[in-house]
């Protein structure tokens, strides 16, 4: 949403409320305006009333396609083969979670960081170093839950550090600095044998067994990844409507004005990096459990850019874009080699990426939106109704 649109939306909250009453079709992105317009009048009423309004606002936001998606993702492993459950399903959700962190940072914070894969890989390395792996000389062998907590906290800290570095300059510099940080980490991991075990990295990092349930099996692992992804998705959805998220979007659109309003711009940005780092770290842990190993190649330039490709492919304007992009990416990765030579995969994915950037900057979601608005612009939606697009 551009600054002008944002301003217009803020001024027209009464119009938005009227529109909500009319029950105009939801556009797939329930906006802040609507929720404030609905919860604010109920603040003085008794709790029961507020609860029911809140409940109604949730029910109204749920559409058939949401239910269909939820039912599909839960039923998916029961009719898909283990290959599809594990290789396609779990992998795209884990990659999607890392891309989600980039979409939160880029789409809502206006900071496109290439270092999200670095943070994820760092978490994975920490899990291997503090937990158990085939390399007993380096791995400390802590219990998995402790190693998990340490890995995720350290990765979040590192992400905040990267954020602190890169928010010192603005805009397009971010992408350069985060790229430099990421590539530097790649070379460090490759050169250093005392901590990162150099070129080989770590292998045999298995998902833990909890209450006799081996999370490494395709079906349990799929549900583990699904749970994390859903949690991450709804966390981001919630956060972008919370005061922190609103302030962040304000900073994205006009940092100077937000500064004048008394917001600490730097703190919000670093905070956004930390939140995104946390999401990426969770994704990184899932990824290392999926692969069972971590090596410098996992955090290389190609991998870093793949996350960006996934986010741009899906569309940076909405959190769901991360998962759509990841599914398309993983499908391409697995099946494009049937059409072209295996060696030429980069050409395919690079070409697809170029085409998307050149012709539909909002990704597949943008393509879908423009298609839809072209289809029904003939009869519906004039004036105010279009604000929320």
């Amino acid at each position, binding site marked *: 949403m551009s600054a002008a649109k944002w301003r217009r939306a803020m001024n027209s909250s009464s119009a938005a409320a009227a529109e909500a009453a009319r029950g105009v079709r939801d556009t797939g992105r329930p906006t802040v305006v609507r929720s404030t317009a609905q919860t604010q009048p109920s603040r003085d009423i008794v709790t029961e009333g507020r609860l029911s309004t809140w409940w109604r606002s949730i029910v109204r936001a749920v559409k058939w396609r949401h239910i269909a998606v939820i039912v599909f993702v839960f039923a998916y492993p029961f009719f898909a083969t283990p290959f599809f459950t594990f290789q396609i399903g779990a992998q795209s959700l884990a990659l999607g979670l890392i891309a989600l962190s980039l979409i939160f940072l880029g789409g809502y914070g206006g900071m496109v960081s290439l270092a999200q894969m670095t943070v994820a890989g760092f978490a994975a390395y920490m899990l291997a170093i503090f937990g158990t792996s085939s390399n007993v000389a380096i791995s400390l062998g802590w219990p998995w839950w402790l190693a998990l907590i340490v890995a995720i906290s350290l990765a979040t800290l590192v992400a905040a550090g990267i954020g602190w570095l890169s928010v010192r300059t603005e*805009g397009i510099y971010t992408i350069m600095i985060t790229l430099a940080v990421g590539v530097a980490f790649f070379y460090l991991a490759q050169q250093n044998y005392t901590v990162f075990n150099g070129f080989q990295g770590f292998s045999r990092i298995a998902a833990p067994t909890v209450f006799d349930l081996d999370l490494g099996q395709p079906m349990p692992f799929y549900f583990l990844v699904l749970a994390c992804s859903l949690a991450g998705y709804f966390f981001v959805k919630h956060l972008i409507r919370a005061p922190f998220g609103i302030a962040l979007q304000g900073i994205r659109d006009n940092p100077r004005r937000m500064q004048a309003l008394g917001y600490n711009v730097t703190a919000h940005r670093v905070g956004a990096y930390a939140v995104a780092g946390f999401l990426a770290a969770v994704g990184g842990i899932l990824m290392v459990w999926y692969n069972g190993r971590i090596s410098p190649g996992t955090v290389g330039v190609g991998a870093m850019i793949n996350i960006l490709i996934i986010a741009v492919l899906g569309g940076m304007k909405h959190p769901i874009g991360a998962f759509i992009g990841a599914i398309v990416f993983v499908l391409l990765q697995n099946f494009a080699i049937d059409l072209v030579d295996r060696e030429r995969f980069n050409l395919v994915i690079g070409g697809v990426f170029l085409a998307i*950037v050149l012709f539909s900057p909002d990704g597949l979601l943008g393509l879908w939106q423009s298609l839809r608005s072209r289809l029904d612009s003939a009869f519906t939606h004039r004036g105010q109704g279009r604000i929320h697009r």
Partner: protein
Amino acid sequence: MSRKNWALLLLFGVPVAVFAVWAIVDNASLFFKTLLNGLTLASLYFLVASGFTLVFGLMRNVNLAHGSLYLFGAYVGWYVGEHTGSWVLAVIAGFLAAAVMGLLMQVLVFRHMQGQDLRQTLVTIGLSIVLADLMLWAWGAEIYTFDPPSWIYGSTTLPLVNKFPTYRIVVLIASIVIGVGLWLLLARTRIGMMIRAGVDDRGMLAASGVNVQRVFALTFAIGAGLAGLAGVVGGTALSISPGEDTRYLLASLVVVIVGGMGSVVGAAIGALLIGLAEQFGLAYAPTYSVVFTFVIMVIALAFKPRGLMGKNT
């Protein structure tokens, strides 16, 4: 110089000086050899990064395909050198090939998305992926080396350093010549004046009747050509293989972040710092050498977010 600058100079200068004295006493030959290697690497980095910073300064275009231009120039140069047997022709071919490629990129793609920083950068990322794969397709994964002409082949005996490859000295001198030439072009010629004016205020330059698009295209061609030239020169000093594009992209990124974006002098200073740090790191602390590069970048960002020579606009 203000007191703060003196304090900074002491803070970073003293440890470096102490290290230098210790290293000279310990093993003078190794120290000076590393120093010369560092200078050679720095001159290579300068050649690559000066084009990068020129393009960024004028067009606000972070060209992440710059490493690919380096590699492309190197491959074309190798091809020409192999078929004609002339190394000088290879250098010229490397420069021209990359310049034409850069020109095409600017005219066909970037010109149509002026002012959309992020989109341009994303396009350069896409281009770099596609180019890297096409080059892998065309030239395979082998490692190529050049045969420099006999007059710069072999080694020269220098004081303090027993024997040093002549070619590296030539690289050093050549890059100084190119650096000075670039400076003369920017500071003394009419085109340089236009480029500098464009860096400062694009709109005003256009308003005073200059065809800005032509200046842009020319700058992009020069920047890309320098990368291609560096490809042949660097490929002769070391070697060319897939993956070198990333290495030089990282180098030019760090160099311009440290030196200040859009400043050729900054690129020279940044290249000097990074090249020396990398070589000394490799010689004295092999597994952590990249950390030095990184630390320099962090320090530069912490104290001067716009780089050492960057303008606070």
